[in-house]
């Protein structure tokens, strides 16, 4: 990870480029003292509310723990069980299907919307409208769509009826379950993601575009050759964050299908939650959460590597 997310070392006195010749004032410690001060508050929150609970969770993954009686160490048993557990593997497959649909569509739409907001109109109303779905809590978003997509009385199926299409059992049909849930969350998050991308677009200096225009580049060419490469650091961040979030899909499933029909939407986090709080199998749930954690770490690492998030090509 270190190699990939290295920032340009901020030099105090010289222009960048002459790293070798830098006079080292505090020897190898650099700005450590200052850094410690700047990091102190965040570190407190980080250690107390993230690190410690995670270490505890990691420990519990090696125990049998029913939440209501003390944990008992049982070595690797939870992990061994997981290998045999068909529900677990099914949950992984279902989750990946969700992430692919959700992230694929959402990212394309978000970059598109951001470009439209950047190149087409400066209207603040447009920006506000785009962010609107994000203002609604995800549980409520799920409920609203559940209502709108109802097989018998949902307005969407009424629409389909008016244009001569048979109603669709969006939540009841196995093949539709995950795509439906993925699309609901695309609806909620595309504007939010677009806003992040938009913030990134604004860091691209205008002179680059001016130069491109002088060269007679078309809008499309400019997008592929200039905008997208320069957007990379922000895009990587957006992807890492949204993919991690996407893997943890829970609320929408809990409110609508609850894992059904059969096991078609039993995503990993819903299964973990079920094990932990409905079936009081917290040790096993922790082990699955650890695997999810490791999986996300690998995916993020790969992303950062593949996309060289290092810095913008401008720097």
């Amino acid at each position: 990870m270190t190699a990939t997310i290295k920032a340009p070392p901020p030099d105090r006195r010289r222009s960048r480029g002459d790293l070798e010749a830098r006079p080292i004032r505090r020897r190898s410690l650099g700005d450590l003292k200052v850094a410690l001060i700047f990091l102190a508050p965040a570190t407190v929150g980080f250690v107390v509310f993230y690190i410690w609970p995670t270490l505890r969770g990691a420990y519990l993954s090696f125990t049998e723990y029913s939440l209501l009686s003390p944990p008992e160490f049982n070595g690797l048993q939870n992990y061994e069980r997981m290998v045999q557990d068909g529900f677990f593997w099914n949950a992984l497959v279902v989750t990946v299907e969700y992430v692919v649909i959700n992230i694929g569509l959402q990212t394309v739409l978000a970059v598109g919307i951001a470009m439209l907001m950047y190149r087409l109109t400066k209207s603040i109303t447009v920006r506000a409208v785009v962010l609107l779905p994000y203002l609604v809590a995800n549980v409520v978003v799920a409920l609203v769509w559940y209502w709108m997509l109802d097989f018998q009385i949902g307005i969407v199926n009424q629409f389909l009826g008016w244009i001569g299409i048979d109603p669709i059992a969006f939540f009841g049909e196995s093949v539709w379950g995950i795509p439906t849930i993925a699309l609901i969350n695309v609806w909620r998050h595309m504007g939010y993601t677009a806003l992040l991308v938009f913030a990134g677009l604004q860091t691209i200096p205008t002179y680059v575009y001016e130069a491109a225009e002088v060269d007679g580049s078309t809008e499309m060419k400019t997008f592929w050759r200039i905008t997208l490469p320069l957007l990379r650091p922000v895009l990587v961040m957006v992807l890492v964050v949204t993919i991690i979030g996407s893997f943890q899909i829970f609320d929408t499933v809990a409110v609508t299908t609850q894992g059904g029909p059969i096991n078609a939407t039993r995503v990993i986090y819903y299964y973990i939650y079920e094990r932990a709080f409905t079936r009081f199998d917290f040790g096993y749930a922790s082990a699955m959460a650890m695997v999810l954690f490791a999986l996300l770490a690998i995916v993020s690492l790969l992303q950062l590597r593949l996309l060289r998030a290092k810095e913008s090509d401008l720097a």
Partner: protein
Amino acid sequence: MNISRRTILKAGLAGLVAPAVAGCNNGAASRGTGEVIYWLWDSAQLPMYTECAKVFHEQNPQYSVKIEQYGWDDYWSKLVTGFISETAPDVFTSHSSRYPLFAAKDQLLPIDEYVAQDNLDLTIYQPRLADRWIGADGKRYGLPKDWDTEVYFYNSALTEAAGISAEQLNSMTWNPQDGGTFEQIVARLTVDSKGRRGDQSGFDKKNVAVYGLGFADAGGSDGQTSWSWYAASNGWKYSEGEPWGTKFFYGDPKFTETIAWWRGLITKGYMPTLAQATSGVDVTTTFGAGKYGMTPNGSWMLGTYAGLKQVKTKLARLPQGPVGKRMSMMNGLADTIWAGTTRPEASWAWVKFLGSKTAQDIVAKAGVVFPAVTESMPAAKAAFAADGWDVTPFLEPVEAGDVFAYPANPNSADVNAVMTPAMESVLAFEKDPSSLAEANDEVNQILSAAS
């Protein structure tokens, strides 16, 4: 630089300490020693329990009750968090599907001693109701507060249009072979898009406008509002030693033939497919839209059906099955005391009060649920009648004793995790009813591993 560093540090420390100090004033320690915290989930019942708390305080000035209400889903997560962090309420409403596990994990206070010490008369409750709250370990964990059974809620405009009388609806018979008169009625209530009925020639089962029978889901491990009464009236039992089953019978032919018949209604076009039935808000809303002729449901749903203003809803008895009886599940709620309570005496006083006729009369008059105390029933009946409901079909099986218990089990969550997908696979025609035998083996494995 030095100054700024210190300032930042100080600011950080102050930020940490100040809220911690300020917060101490708001801690849970501030509540009085006679105050009981009581939880329930049904907001419709909040007003009547608030009334109960008022009367309780008047009768017992040394005690008071603070009621907190959370919706069903939040209720259980918050309760479990409360158990773990020692912040659970002193007294809370409990459900047959949840309390066995809580009792097994020592989270509930047995009340046997209190019952003995106060010489409590448990015969004031509906028969068998109080004993539902005796756990697998033989200890009593709660006093019943209400009970429920199932009936069919039917759309009377649709039954009249089909020429089906209330008498016919209330004298239905059922068997797993041809479905009896029940199936005939369901067929007649079903109407396709061209207005042809399910029992008429040319009926197009691919384009149904109104289904004779609606259903909420595949029923999971209990089938309370979906298939439980068919199976029971076919002579089937959930398990050996009901309700504390050690061995389940989901593979029993009496059960599988019931389910095979039930899902057959989908093939015949009288009932929506599982996909259609479960793809949407809920069965009552669809019923309220006039898309179902009738839907089975529990007595706790009376208020919801009353809220469906565009259909005129009436109640019909469950059908008489091969055993020659109408069988209904009888379940109910109870008030239980958390084992970790710091004020057991006050908690017991409140539980005892809620289980008394005084409190149950208040509950009965609200007309939301059926009170557990037999003598409070007339008041409830009158309250429901005032809302336009003749609740007799709910009461008959109880009076006749033709009821069976909810399959209570400390492992019911695990059992459900197996049975829900298994039942859905069958209802979705992905597996045959005979596959339930495999699911049953899995269930029994879970039970034997746990004991």
